[in-house]
Each structure stands twice: as C-alpha cells, then as structure tokens.
C-alpha cells in the first residue's frame, strides 16, 4: 500500500492528487511503526506529517490555484533516464543487501517497551536534553525565516 501510494505520488498529474496519495503513504508508514511497536513515533508521524505538513502543502497548492495541470510537456528521454537510474539504484542496493549475512536477522515485532512514550521520554529528557533545546532554537529560526521570506515581497513594493 505504501509503495502504491508512492508510485501514485510520482505519476499523478495534479499536485492535489499527489498530496492526497502522499497522505496515504504516511498513514501506511505509521501502520508499519505500530506493527513494530513504536507507538510514539507512529502518533508523531501522523500528527506532524499527515496532519501539519500535508495541510501546509495543500494550503500552498490551493493558494497558488494549481489545480489545473500547468506542467509543460517535458523531455521524454530525460524522463526515461530518470526512471532507469532510479531502477538501477534500487536493483544495486537490493542485490547488495541480500548478499549480506545480517539481512536475515530477526526483528522484535510486537513486543518490547522501548518504543513507548515513557521510555522515550526518559531517554529524551535525560540524555538528549541539549539536542532538544537546540531543536527548539532551530524551530524559532525556521519560523522567523519563513516569515521573512513570506513578507519580503511587500517591502519591495
């Protein structure tokens, strides 16, 4: 399901359909997180990606009024070359991975409590407090940057 959504993201003509299929992909990835018992990451993935970021994308697309297909006819050969190179990368990496002995290691699927909020919170606020605070500064600077980028046009006028 994730793969189907991803392929539709790339191939659909209209950006709005692309965004909707990307939401499908994020839901599928969250399902995989739940299968691996990483519930905190699943919820964060749903809230941050499928909730916030995709709404931001949709808002930008609707604001630009891009519903019609404005994409010009592009070079067929370039498209084909991109497809071939991506497929080659996929084949090479998969062939290399299946050769390694570690690829048959088992995963702890539905058990293990280190994906739960309690454990992650303890680790996050004990060992990674400085990184957490720095990320808040990063958010502040990103917010300021976005506002400055968004309002520069008016000052020029």
């Amino acid at each position, binding site marked *: 399901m994730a793969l189907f959504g991803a392929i539709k993201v790339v191939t659909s003509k209209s950006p709005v359909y692309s965004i909707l299929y990307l939401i499908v992909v994020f839901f599928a990835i969250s399902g995989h997180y739940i299968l691996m018992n990483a519930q905190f990451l699943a919820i964060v993935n749903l809230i941050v990606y499928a909730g916030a970021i995709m709404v931001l994308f949709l808002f930008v697309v609707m604001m630009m009024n891009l519903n019609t297909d404005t994409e010009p006819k592009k070079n067929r050969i370039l498209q084909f070359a991109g497809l071939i190179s991506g497929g080659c990368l*996929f084949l090479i990496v998969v062939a290399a991975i299946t050769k390694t002995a570690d690829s048959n290691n088992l995963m*702890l699927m539905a058990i293990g409590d280190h994906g739960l909020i309690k454990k992650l919170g303890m680790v996050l606020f004990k060992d990674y407090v400085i990184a957490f605070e720095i990320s808040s500064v990063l958010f502040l600077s990103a917010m300021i940057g976005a506002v400055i980028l968004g309002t520069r046009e008016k000052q020029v006028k």
Partner: protein
Amino acid sequence: MEIKWYIGLAVALFCTGIVGVLTRRNSIIIFMCIELMLNAVNLLLVAFSKMHAASAIGIADPSIVSNAQIFVFFIMVVAAAEVSVGLAIIVMLYRNTRSVDVNFLNRLKN
C-alpha cells in the same frame, strides 16, 4: 520477521522518491518526493532499532535501544522546520515568476 523485507520496502520508497525528483518539473512535487525519501530513511531506522532490540534482549542498559527512535524524532523535527522554510521559498518563487516550474530557474545561469 526478517529485516530484509523492511530494507526492501525502504529502498523502494527511497528510489521512488529519487525517480520523482529526477523526472518531475513541478517544484512542489519535487519537494514532496524529498519528504518521501526522508520517511523511507525513518522507516529503515526504526526497523534497525527493532533488529538491535532483538539482538540485545539481555543487555544491562536498555536505554541504548531507544536511541534510534530518538534519532527519528529529531529527523522529524528538522524535516518540519525544513518544510516550512522550503514552502516559503516556493511561495516566493511563485510570486516572482508566476510558475512553479523549476526550469524557470535556468535564468540563474546568465
């Protein structure tokens, strides 16, 4: 479940994102493909953390298993910041050129 299936899924998602970046001309869709690649890497990190957990069951300090998931959390934080700035750049680009086609940026050459 063996790790190789998740490796295959993540690599396939990543390559789909690469194909999208290489073939599409719409800058918003290119941006979404970058998000797709980020999420493929996140999925792979969580899968490897669970593999590590399966191999380190009797370990004394269990908190080292959670490190990968904290890492994924910080990747999500950085991706959210990146999306806000990138979308602001795309909006500004659209205001200046009335288009989201990346081919218009060829003008930077001359």
